């Protein structure tokens, strides 16, 4: 019986907890049981970790589980799998693919990464050059991918390749699941301006991928990739962010604790950013309320654009406010973090890492194009690559 309302769903969770005491159950066993009970992501179909319920109802499940301190699947560690691979597998995967991949993806037993961007294909993702050539029941893949977080921990990757260079770029792409433990997959850390290496370069040399690991039709990979990119994770439910949370708290704390740093110019700059941060917080809260009410809109792209600039301004001001201390950095040693933590390190780290905010997940410039064209209906960019075979494009 599918719960007909959130009260019945709450009862379902409580019944599950009565049978699986989180305090007395092994973490992984608990997560597997939760998946099998359809309480992993309630909007997914029965049998694939869900109950076919509205996505917004997941908050009910999460709240019940959080109340008893049940273990979670450490979502920040498996964000690519949850947010990008899973919805794509659900939309385009065969039954075999869905039942093979989704459960260990959700429990975190198998980490996923994303092999999309290339050195020559960033904002212009559809221009990518990694080749896949058919060989019997397999495909032979050669190329180079970049900005792959978690590649060094990942069991699987979602991969977009070029399968037909003789047609315009969007039409010759094919989407695969790639086994990261296969021979020919080489992962190298990509050191970034903070000194650490959150991301990787991935070199693919004669990697043999079975055709059974293809997602969607041959040469229909762009449509599949769109599904992945549209499913940038949207946080539903969860607690509201507190006032003065996040980066602004570093500024306000320094301001309150250290009166000797205060100047009129800094005061004005601080208050301007405090206002912007509070407004951004309210905009995030409003977006959550819209989603909860079943009125999703394009506002998330506005908040991403605003957040990138704001985070950069706040972390920049903090360094200036600190004066001499801002001249120092904590550690340039190359680390391999599995989660991004803006606040746990020095202000210099926050400043440098926030430079990525306006580049990762779509540059702010591309985001402005998307907003102006898709939300505001302004004319598209003039395109010289639309009707040209990929192999003939200037590069």
């Amino acid at each position, binding site marked *: 019986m599918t719960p007909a309302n959130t009260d019945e769903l709450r009862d379902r969770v409580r019944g599950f907890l009565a049978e699986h005491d989180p305090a007395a159950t092994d973490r992984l066993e608990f997560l597997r049981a939760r998946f099998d009970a359809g309480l992993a992501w309630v909007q997914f179909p029965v049998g694939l970790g869900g109950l076919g319920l509205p996505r917004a109802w997941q908050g009910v499940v999460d709240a019940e589980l959080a109340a008893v301190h049940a273990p979670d699947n450490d979502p920040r560690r498996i964000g690519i799998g949850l947010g990008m691979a899973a919805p794509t597998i659900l939309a385009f995967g065969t039954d075999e693919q869905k039942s093979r991949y989704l459960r260990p993806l959700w429990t975190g037993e198998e980490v996923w990464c994303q092999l999309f961007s290339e050195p020559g294909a960033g904002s212009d993702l559809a221009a990518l050059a990694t080749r896949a050539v058919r060989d019997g029941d397999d495909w032979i893949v050669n190329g180079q991918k970049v900005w792959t977080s978690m590649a060094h921990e990942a069991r699987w990757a979602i991969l977009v390749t070029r399968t037909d260079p003789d047609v315009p770029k969007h039409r010759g792409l094919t989407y695969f699941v790639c086994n990261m433990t296969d021979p020919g997959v080489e992962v190298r850390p990509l050191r970034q301006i903070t000194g650490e290496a959150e991301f990787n370069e991935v070199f693919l040399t004669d990697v043999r991928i079975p055709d059974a690991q293809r997602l969607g039709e041959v040469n229909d990979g762009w449509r599949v990739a769109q599904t992945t990119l549209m499913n940038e994770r949207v946080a539903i439910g969860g607690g*509201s962010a507190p*006032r*003065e949370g996040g980066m602004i708290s570093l500024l*306000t704390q320094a*301001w*309150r604790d250290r009166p000797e740093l*205060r100047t*009129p110019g800094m*005061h*004005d700059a*601080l*208050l*301007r950013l*405090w*206002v*912007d941060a*509070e*407004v*951004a917080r*309210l*905009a995030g*809260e*409003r977006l959550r*309320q*819209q989603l909860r*009410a079943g*009125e999703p809109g394009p*506002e998330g*792209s*506005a*908040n991403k*654009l*605003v957040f990138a600039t704001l985070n950069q301004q706040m972390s920049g001001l903090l360094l200036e406010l600190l004066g001499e201390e801002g001249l120092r950095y904590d550690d340039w040693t190359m680390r391999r973090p599995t989660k991004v933590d803006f606040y746990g390190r020095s202000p210099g780290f926050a400043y440098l890492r926030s430079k990525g905010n306006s580049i990762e997940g779509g540059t702010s*410039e591309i*985001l*402005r*194009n998307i*907003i*102006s*064209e898709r*939300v*505001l*209906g*302004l*004319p*598209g*960019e*003039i395109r010289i690559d639309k009707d040209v075979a990929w192999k003939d494009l200037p590069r």
Partner: protein
Amino acid sequence: MSAPADLLYSDVEEELRRSVRGVLADRADWTKVLARVETDERYDLALWRTLSDEMGLAGLPVTEDDGGAGASLRETAVVMEELGRAVAPVPFLGSAVLATVALSVAGAHDELTALASGARTGTLGVSFATAPGAAFPAVVSADGGRLTGSVTSVVDALPADLVVVPALAAGKPSLYVVDAADLQRTPVVSLDLTRPLCDLRFDGVAGREIATGEQAERAFHAALYAGAAMLASEQLGLAERCLEMSLDYTKSRYQFARPIGSYQALKHRMADLWAGLVQARAVARYAADCCARADDDIPVAVAVAGAFVSPLAVRAAEECVQMHGGIGFTWEHPAHLYLKRAKSTSIALGTADAHRATLGQLVDLPA
């Protein structure tokens, strides 16, 4: 931040928006608004009667016992958004917000009922540049029920029947109601063509005392907070309309054989404006919701809304002029009506700087 704020619009609020927008489209399209600005009838009193009396919008936040609609400043804020979109020349802010809130807190039921029903029109006798949280004004003194002094740059006083006047009676804060007809009202040549100000002079004018001491101060402050919160919604509506005008024009204006809206130099600025509007809507709703719930967070909510929304509205209006090029610089195009309203309103009831200064004290970020 006691109860969680509702930052969305209810179905009833959207219905209200549709009906107000419909009336304004018919009665206050920009050609009509522009045609009025150099006449003797600066306010559209027929439209004001429709909105206040026939549609019952003047008494939205007033209880039904006092002749109002029993709604709240959330609904008033929706009306303000629509009035901002149309830069409509009606004394809604002065009468349905400033005077109404002051009379309500002062407990002046007779006058409140008269305003709520639309039978009479009122305003608050303070300079329009007064910021919320300002000291109680000392420009008018009262002695034996007679008021003496002057107040400059008062909003919506020209069409008012009554004025709620903060005055000092033997040094004690007091609120009086005076008949506007007894005052000397001198129109000001105002930067804002669609919301003209005037100077008031009190030469021993008879007034009725409606509150004194702490209650008078509370009524005065409540009116200014509500006014500033509602102006944030008005500026939101205005900014939204400015962006729409810019979009319409840049999609249809061709130069170098392409719509100028296809250039990133313009597209990206409009995208940024839209992103700003998404932010502004959240904070304007928050301020209105706090006012509706009489939340303790009103001072912070109003300061944040005041500091954020007005600068955005000014930018939207300035960009509207710029993106229209030559036509946007002419008297015949409505862009200047919006620019003048936006810039004036950014000074009214507290500049962004004044709101930030207040905020610094409220959230323990001292200079």
